[in-house]
């Protein structure tokens, strides 16, 4: 399965198994979503289990919270992560805080799915990576899969989680593992081990990173699309790097991170979002705090530049294999 099919399969399995789950969002119903992730679900499970919502991200999240407080497990979709912002107050002031402030009388077990990230020539408002602003919000979990197998297992787990989860789908990975070489032929998931996705329900716990590649020379922290780009860079620069796919940034697998950096003594952090104030800062600070005496070189961050996402300069902005390789080299030669 490609990632779209894996996500669809997760949703299908949950709708079948749990009558309290339901999906709504812009164009997710009859049409099946602009990226087809909900394709066929309305037809199979009925109009009331998967339906279109008004163009009102705030309203979508607000009603989802109310449904969650009633006892349902809504799975709203926000069409592009760039369009989560009109719902930001609902997510922060309400979803994230409801359990705490009501001392557990009410909570919002919602899973907000949203495609994010660049590499599709979508221009500024179809390409952004907003994970950092969610990571800072106490009470929100943020999950970012990097392959079909994880996507399904993490999505099922997120839906079953009793806290609000932002589930960011790297849209550039929907149809194939993208290694950052935008000028090469498009890869497909076909034949990729992580494209072996079982039917039915299975779960991957939130907060467990996955070691994509073990190595001794340097630890690379990445998530989403950048896992594949980092892997390409590691191969190309022929560095014995350990690649850690965080899979969820809240909860964060701090143990895996610390263990790896203590072993390698070096760390490179990669994300698509612009650098300043991005989640890489938190990762860098944590690593520095917990691995200070093990560090043999400065922790580097390879990220989008501190500009808005620029349409024509997508590939100049994108932290591609070349920039990652350069950072790996710098860190190793330090």
């Amino acid at each position: 399965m490609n990632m779209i099919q894996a996500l669809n399969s997760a949703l299908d399995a949950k709708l079948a198994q749990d009558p309290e789950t339901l999906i709504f969002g812009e164009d997710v119903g009859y049409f099946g979503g602009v990226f087809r992730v909900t394709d066929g679900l309305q037809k199979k499970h009925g109009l009331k289990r998967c339906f279109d919502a008004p163009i009102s991200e705030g309203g979508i999240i607000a009603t989802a919270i109310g449904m969650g407080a009633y006892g349902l497990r809504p799975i709203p979709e926000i069409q592009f992560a760039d369009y989560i912002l009109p719902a930001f107050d609902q997510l922060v002031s309400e979803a994230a805080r409801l359990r705490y402030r009501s001392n557990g009388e009410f909570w919002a077990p919602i899973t907000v799915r949203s495609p994010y990230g660049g590499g599709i020539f979508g221009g500024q408002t179809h390409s952004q990576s907003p994970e950092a602003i969610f990571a800072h919000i106490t009470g929100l979990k943020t999950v970012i899969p990097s392959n079909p197998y994880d996507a399904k297992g993490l999505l099922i787990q997120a839906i079953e989680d009793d806290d609000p989860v932002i589930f960011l789908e790297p849209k550039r990975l929907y149809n194939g593992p993208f290694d950052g070489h935008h000028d090469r032929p498009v890869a497909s998931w076909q034949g990729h081990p992580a494209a072996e996705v079982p039917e039915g329900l299975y779960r991957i716990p939130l907060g467990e990173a996955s070691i994509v590649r073990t190595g001794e020379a340097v630890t690379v922290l990445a998530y989403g699309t950048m896992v594949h780009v980092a892997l390409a860079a590691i191969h190309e620069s022929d560095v014995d790097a350990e690649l850690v796919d965080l899979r969820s940034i809240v909860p964060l697998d701090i143990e895996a991170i610390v263990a790896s950096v203590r072993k390698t003594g070096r760390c490179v952090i990669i994300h698509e979002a612009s650098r300043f104030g991005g989640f890489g800062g938190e990762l860098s600070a944590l690593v520095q705090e917990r691995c200070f005496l093990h560090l043999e070189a400065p922790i580097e961050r390879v990220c989008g530049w501190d500009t808005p996402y620029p349409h024509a300069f997508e590939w100049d902005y994108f932290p591609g294999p070349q920039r990652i390789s350069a950072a790996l080299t710098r860190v190793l030669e330090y």
Partner: protein
Amino acid sequence: MSNLPPLSFYVPEPAARPGQTNLFSSSSMPAAGDMRRPDPLEAEAGMRDLPFGLIRVLDDEGLAAGPWAPQLAPGRLRDGLRAMVLTRLFDDRLFRAHRQGKTSFYMKSSGEEAIGAAQSMVLAAGDMCFPTYRVMSWLHARNYPLVEMVNQIFSNEKDPLKGRQLPILFSARDYGFYSLSGNVGSRFGHAVGWAMASAYKGDDRIALAYIGEGTTAEGDFHEALTFASVYHAPCILCVTNNQWAISSYAGIAGGDETTFAAKAIAYGIPGLRVDGNDFLAVWAATAWAAERARANKGATLIELYTYRAGGHSTSDDPTKYRPADEAAHWPLGDPVERLKKHLITLREWDEDRHAALSVELDSAVRTAVKEGESVGTLGKSKPPVSEMFEGVFKEPDWRVVEQRRELGV
């Protein structure tokens, strides 16, 4: 075009400021009993006059008039009166407790006690209210334990919300009272989602939500109404138009341009404009909307036309921005006095019984406050500090575990 005068910038201003007198002349006040009462199952298209009227039942003589008169047993009326009097006494005492430094904050419902009281009584136990901070009479009408409220307001060791929330921002699930928060407006859409969920499950519970007239300007208001309209959500959406939003008069929210009830027309749902100081009118309109919602006819918007007789909160001094005697000129009177008069007119109440009720309730409030004080007041007692770290998520993650350890609690 060029021979027109230039554009000029318009900023609305209230009828009167301190030192002036507001006679409320601009509000046309229909007489009690004058409004027609369509069948609650009728289509909205036939009701577009309602938002421009004012549903009133109690007249100046204390009699119930017209088709909206709800025909309540005197016992119910006395229950309502009791809830309203209790609310007022509780407010007064806790307001004073703030002056004495026993709490960080308080907000009164003065003048608006009929709203929460009547609606709490109309709705069923399984229904859910999505409150503002100014409908504590909802809880008083359902006999929420006073001492629990006091403990929350004092943020003491027995605070049912474990010290995590500002005073009076309650949550009381078992009393049909959804979790409040400091942000105004952001729960309005939760009510709609909650109601959609009830319909989705094929249950029979409906939701009732409040929003202040000032807060109708938030996008949340519109989004909630849009969803309610599109999915025929079984809910009652109430705008408590108490004329003021802190220091801003209703005109700053558009109240000079049309009524708040008229906003219903934008969504094709009925809009009722109701005398919010008239317990019977509030009751009747709510029952009408509840009947409609339970019959799968969807949402109703109710504007509750009232007056915030006190300051916005303990942080506010209303004489800074409105005439000190404005409340006295409010043409719709005091809700407690009006219901009391009605009961007396019906010969179901008298001044002696009223005085006795006040004494009884005041002593109940005193007892509760004493009990709360014995646990402790703000800063003198609080829940265990470990409670700060609980409930961020259902299960704590390593961050709060570590931090709790670091703080040594």
